[in-house]
């Protein structure tokens, strides 16, 4: 199939940037979206032109770095898929595909489609961990965790930190990401000890880095490749409010 591409090109973080049009012929419907971009780049290199910079790594939806905003959707078409799982069969022959980087103050564009997602690491360093050495996997039944909590914690832990929630949100809010991280740890005995401090610090960091506040539109959960639901945001609100009203610090 033949496709037209409309891709954001920006030389560096300070440059102005603009959309560049490309045409690509002989695209296989079974190709993944990232392979399609690779073949575009090969073609561009052969022609002596600048290839398009984009991020990818695992190609199996676990690293979270293939952050592309395709035709108005973070991670493109399809439910609960990362960009690396999108295939060209999802597009029509002759279709124009517009590819943009994540747009958020907290995620500045570094080059073309690649953004700086360091902000998420900073939020994690503010409290997304347990301070004690929890050691090896404990013996079965030595630490009891209820089935419901265990399942919920596991669901939250599926977050790959891709930032699609921020990209989808009209407020560029990072609440879904922070909610997943705070909930995952708050639900388990090892993480519960520091739950209050964690919620306070991670939210403070999120605010400081320029992410917007949640207005409950629910756009994030629709685009999240891991199906993290906004019920976790309610949990984060709960954790944060109870921490604010009780923590002395």
């Amino acid at each position, binding site marked *: 199939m033949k496709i037209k591409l409309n891709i954001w090109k920006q030389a560096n973080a300070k440059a102005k940037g603009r959309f560049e049009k490309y045409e690509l012929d002989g695209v296989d419907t079974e190709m993944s979206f990232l392979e399609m971009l690779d073949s575009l780049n090969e073609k561009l290199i052969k022609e002596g032109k600048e290839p398009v910079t984009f991020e990818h790594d695992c190609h199996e939806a676990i690293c979270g770095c293939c952050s592309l905003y395709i035709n108005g959707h973070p991670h493109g078409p399809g439910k609960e898929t990362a960009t690396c799982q999108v295939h060209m069969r999802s597009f029509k022959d002759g279709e124009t595909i517009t590819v943009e980087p994540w747009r958020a103050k907290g995620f500045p564009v570094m080059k073309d489609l690649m953004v700086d997602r360091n902000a998420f690491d900073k939020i994690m360093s503010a409290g997304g961990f347990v301070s004690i050495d929890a050691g090896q996997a404990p013996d079965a039944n030595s630490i009891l965790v209820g089935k419901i909590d265990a399942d919920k914690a596991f669901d939250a832990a599926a977050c790959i930190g891709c930032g699609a929630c921020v990209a989808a949100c009209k407020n560029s809010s990072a609440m879904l990401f922070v909610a997943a991280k705070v909930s995952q740890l708050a639900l388990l005995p090892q993480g519960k000890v520091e739950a209050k401090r964690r919620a306070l610090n991670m939210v403070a960091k999120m605010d400081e880095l320029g992410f917007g506040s949640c207005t409950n539109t629910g756009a994030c959960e629709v685009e999240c490749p891991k199906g993290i639901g906004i*019920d976790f945001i309610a949990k984060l609100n709960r954790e944060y409010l109870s921490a604010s009203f009780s923590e002395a610090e």
Partner: protein
Amino acid sequence: MTKFFTSSIGQKFFMSITGLFLMLFLIVHLTINSLLLFGDGTLFNQAANFMSSNPVMKVIEPILALGFILHIIYAAYITLKNMKARPKGYKITTKTKASWASKNMFVLGTLIFIFLVIHLANFFWKVKFGTVETVMVEGKELHDVYALVAGLFKGWWWYDVIYIVGVIFLFLHLTHGFWSAFQTIGWDNEKWMPRLKVIGYIYSIIICGGFAFIPLYFLIKYAV
């Protein structure tokens, strides 16, 4: 705790609390308005005069005003800050499914605010500071608020239109606002989210249906 007031969740908490408070007020407001539908207006006049003169209401009135003011100021502040969180927008605006109302709460709020100003000027102001005719009811002199309301609703069809359009904006605002308020204070989970949405719709339909019915009732009753 000091950080709470400036944090994103803290600010949203005040939006939520004031919103819930205003939703309670709407219930009281509609209950009293519904008296317009019964009898010759004596009942409504008694209720309206009671509301504007008893000491408890004197205390509640400024609290109510504060509720409105905080809700509006926080909304403006949060909206501005949220706009700054995305300095450069997308070329293709989002195709993500989210309810229209949820994405346009500030627009709806602004429209409701405009309606509120008109509404206050027409009723509240006149009763409080203006010259409203008085009637004698059971030996007491009461403001004839009924005549004021009925006069506007009967005599000015375009006022009814403004009123009903205002109520429609309010309806849309509430369909998102109701469950959203609970979500923000953390009173929500997977099970309660659909329930709260349904309860929110029922609440919005009753409140806004009720408010919209009253001018229609006057129009139809006196059209012939």
